[in-house]
Every structure is written in structure tokens, then in C-alpha cells.
């Protein structure tokens, strides 16, 4: 039922298709990429868009399409792992704070406030700079900046659902607090969580790209969209436009797709929006 509503909107249908293309490219990278992404070809260096190289080549003659497709793997994987880690940690903390209340709540929420006091990107930069920029650390950096969002969201939902009569009913039949939270309350917090996670995926991709753009994220020779954009930026003046345009478009399209789908999901999952449009 939700699926049909998601595809009914033309914009979100387009977004779903775009995302499908990116995900398929990422999953099937070794098979759909026409060249080895790291294979250099001095003769074809900086060649423009052509039949041989649909999206052109870079300074070392590496095929840009192959590099983009392989970069999709990294970008999606990092964003997905960061979102998963943040979601797991954030909702655990949020559930604890919301259900227990009292000093546990105070302590957790002040800690979360402290993390939120830093601008997210500066914090992510700080973490990668401090831990060193391996892929795992980039995931950690993004996850840390996203944890507060989920914690606050789930805490708020918890405060709401724990007062529901079915929570009371669950208590009267002798459930343990853990069973009440896991079986009865958390599943009822899912809709806003799904929306938030989808929107956060877009942000996560943007953050990986931005970190890599300034050299703190994914390191060459592994290709990554932000890092490719950074490399391409140097060639704008000299006329090799394809080097900056295509990685930039990839970032934009993917982030936009996540945001559009997130927005539509919000409408679909929000009971107050049922029947609208």
C-alpha cells in the first residue's frame, strides 16, 4: 500500500528510479564499468566525452565512468554504515532516555546536547583529523554527528508512546521493561525513524563527499565523488569541464533522490496526511 503511494508521486518515482540506477551501479560496479577504474592510459589523458570514454578521462587517462561507478560503492557503503551505526546507537540511547526518564534522561540528553553544540561538519572534520582518515573512521565521524538526531527523535517518540494505553496494558500483563520497550514501544516509533534515516542518508553522502573534497575522507587511489570533484575543480578554467561536472552531478542526484524519497515517506507514513492528494 505504501509502495503504491510512493510511486504515485511523479517526483518521488523519478527519485526512486535515480536511486535504483545508483544502487545497481554500485552493486554491479565490476561488471558495468567499461574499464578498470585505476588503469592509466597516457595516450588518452584528459580526453573529452567520447564513445570510448562516455564521461571522458582524467589526467592519467583513467576512465571517468568506471571511476564514478566504483565511487558509488564507497559513497553508498560509507553512508549506509554510518546511518546504521547512528541509528542503532541513537535509538538505543533515545529509548533509554525516553523510557527511563529521570537522571538517565538528563545525563544522556546533556551529552547529546554537547555533541550537537558542534557544527556537524566541523565535528566530522575533527574526528577524521584526530583518528586518521581510514574508511572506518569516516564512518565513525559521520555516525557520531548523526547519533544526536536519532536520540532526540526516539526520546520524543518514547515520551509519547509510553503514555499510550497499550503501554499500560503491556505493563498489566506482566511484561518486563525491556520487553515493553522492544516489543511494544519501539515498533511504534518506526515511521518517523524511517523518514529520518532516509533524509540522513542524503546528508551522510554529502558529508563523505565534503570530507573527501577537502582531503580528509576517502583517500586516492580509491575514487570517491567528492574527491573526484575536488580534482576536477582544477580543470574548470582550462576547459576540461567533464571532470568536475559528472562527479558533482552524481552527488547532487543521489542526495536529491534521498531527500525527495524522505519527504514523500514522511507524507505517506504520517497518519495526518493519509488521504491527502
Amino acid at each position, binding site marked *: 500500500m505504501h509502495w503504491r503511494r510512493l510511486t504515485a508521486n511523479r517526483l518521488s518515482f523519478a527519485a526512486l528510479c535515480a536511486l535504483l540506477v545508483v544502487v545497481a551501479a554500485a552493486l554491479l560496479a565490476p561488471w558495468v564499468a567499461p574499464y578498470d577504474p585505476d588503469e592509466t592510459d597516457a595516450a588518452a589523458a584528459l580526453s573529452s566525452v567520447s564513445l570510448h570514454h562516455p564521461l571522458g578521462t582524467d589526467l592519467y587517462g583513467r576512465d571517468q565512468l568506471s571511476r564514478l561507478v566504483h565511487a558509488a560503492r564507497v559513497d553508498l557503503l560509507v553512508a549506509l554504515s554510518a546511518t546504521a551505526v547512528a541509528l542503532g546507537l541513537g535509538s538505543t540511547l533515545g529509548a533509554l532516555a525516553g523510557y527511563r526518564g529521570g537522571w538517565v534522561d538528563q545525563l544522556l540528553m546533556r551529552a547529546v546536547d554537547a555533541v550537537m553544540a558542534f557544527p556537524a561538519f566541523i565535528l566530522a572534520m575533527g574526528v577524521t583529523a584526530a583518528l586518521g582518515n581510514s574508511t572506518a573512521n569516516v564512518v565513525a565521524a559521520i555516525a557520531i554527528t548523526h547519533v544526536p538526531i536519532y536520540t532526540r527523535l526516539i526520546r520524543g517518540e518514547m515520551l509519547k508512546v509510553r503514555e499510550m*494505553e*497499550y503501554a499500560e*496494558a503491556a505493563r498489566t500483563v506482566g511484561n518486563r521493561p525491556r520487553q515493553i520497550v522492544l516489543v511494544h514501544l519501539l515498533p*511504534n516509533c518506526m515511521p518517523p525513524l524511517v523518514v529520518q534515516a532516509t533524509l540522513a542518508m542524503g546528508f551522510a553522502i554529502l558529508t563523505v563527499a565534503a570530507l573527501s573534497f577537502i582531503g580528509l575522507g576517502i583517500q586516492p587511489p580509491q575514487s570517491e565523488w567528492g574527491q573526484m570533484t575536488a580534482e576536477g575543480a582544477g580543470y574548470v578554467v582550462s576547459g576540461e569541464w567533464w571532470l568536475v561536472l559528472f562527479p558533482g552531478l552524481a552527488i547532487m542526484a543521489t542526495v536529491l533522490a534521498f531527500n525527495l524519497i524522505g519527504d514523500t515517506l514522511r507524507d505517506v507514513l504520517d497518519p495526518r496526511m493519509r488521504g491527502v492528494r
Partner: protein
Amino acid sequence: MTALLSVRDLSVQFVTDDGVVEALDTVSFDVRAGEILGVVGESGSGKSVTALAMLRLIRPPGHIVGGAVRFDGVDLLTVSEEQMRAVRGRSISMVFQSPRTALNPVLTVGRQIARLFALHQRASAPEAWRRALEMLVLVGIADPERRARQYAHQLSGGMCQRVMIAMALATAPRLLIADEPTTGLDVSIAAQVLELLRDLGRRTGAAIVLITHDLAVVAEVCDRVTVMHAGQLVEMADVRTLFARPLHPYTQALVRSIPRIDQDVTLEPIPGTVPSMLAPPPGCRYADRCPRVLDVCRRARPALLGAGPEHEVACYAVEQDVGVTVR
């Protein structure tokens, strides 16, 4: 007849920013095995608090400040939380006011019932499911196979209440507390639900505490009745006596406020509202609304005294009528 559950001097307070609310003031009553005991009173009279206090489920800012709830000779207020969890749902269970919101919206009703068997009787999943279906049949739900796979929002209000009753009776409790079980239902469905409760209570031998503001419901199904006002128990009698010879002015007013279609009498509303239970005066809490108020009523609280077989009342005016009361 021995008491299955006996509540003695139960008091509950809620600590709020404005002061201490005395929601229950030394309430005592017995529930006998197999009977249906009605608890009546206006909104805010402490009926639901009584129910939750019996299960020790009063949550902060409220707490039980005194008294005892003896079930099978054990004071539930003194046992560990672990033991209390075993009592809840297994020995004492509860049916809620609004069945649709008391069922978890993201679990199918079958799973919710089946969980109880897994929780309390360690039944395997297929066994629990099979018994959940049996429970649905027992409460008169047609096509249980299909209904069990549906969610609360796909069922009608009456059906939801049947499911709640199925959940409450699933583990064969000895006491069932029904908190306004028919409030959200239309009259014909409400009658069916009451009939079902009474019938199942009789068949399983479970005693039922029926909390309601509806005296018609009480007259219909209860064996005995306790009347509550502002957190105090004012009168207790078997159902015939209560309607034939109500003694407490509040009970009399309640009985007079029942609409009668067979008699041409004006409906008499009870003057005033339930008084604030925030730092209440020491005397009878009905004093300010009472047509028979005496000086002593505002100074001291009348005790619950015997006014006949199966009949107790807490009122100085009644004591005056009778002259010397014999306990």
C-alpha cells in the same frame, strides 16, 4: 465466603507542583471468589486509581502511601517486582476502557494474545498461536483465523473489546479488573460485552471487579457494589440493597440521577463537582455537596459502619438516623 482479594486502608497520593493530591484515602473492600464487584463513582472519584493500585502500577508522581492488598493471603504491596510481574496477567488481569488504543497498533491481535502464553506459560510459538485462536473463539469472534492476522485498526470497537477480554482471560486469571469496559461502545455492543464478561467469569470462576460510572451496568451484572466519591469509599452493599435502600446521600443522589423511562420523574443532577483532592479538608469529602450535612461532617471523617447484612455506609447523618450503630 472467603475473600479472594482484600484491600485494606489503601491510600494513594500524587505529588504535584501544586501540592499533594490524595487520590485514594484509606479504601477498604473485599473481592470474593467468583463474584462481580461493581466500583461506581463519578469521574475523578478514584476508581481507576484503585484498579492500578491493586496491580501496583501507580507510576510517579503517584505512589501508594499505605495499606495492604492481600491476594491469596499475600500482601502484594510487599512482594518483589519480579513476583508482582508474575501476578500481573497470570493471576490478576485487566480490561481497559478504550480497547482500540489498549491494543498495540503494530502487532496483530493474534500475536498479542499468543505473546501472553509465551510470556507466562512458556508455550512454543505454534502452541501459543493455536491457543490464541481458541481464545478468539471463546470470546465469540467469527473467522478467528483471519481476525488473528489483523491489526486493531481493522477491527470494530466491539471486536477490539472482545480481543481485550480474550487477552485478559488467556492465562485463566482468578481476578479480572475491567475498567469501564463498555464506555466507548454503543449500547447493543456494550450489552453483548457485559454478557460475555459475566458468562466467561462464571465459566472460568474468575472474580470480576467492574469499574464503571454507569449504574445501569451495575444493576445489570454486579453481585455487590462499592460506591466511591473523591477517593473515599462511601457505601458498600449487595446490588439489590443498594438500589432498593441506598443510605449515603451521595448514593441516593446517584440512584436518583438514573434516567427512568417508566416513571415520570425529573432527572436530578448531583449539585457541584467532585471536590479537589489537593490537600482536602479532614472531614467527609461529600460535605460541600451534601443536602444532609452536619457540623461534624466537616471536622471528622465518618467510618464505614454496618447498616445491615451486606451493607456498610460511611455517613454521620445515617448514623444519626439509626441512633446507635452496631458494627
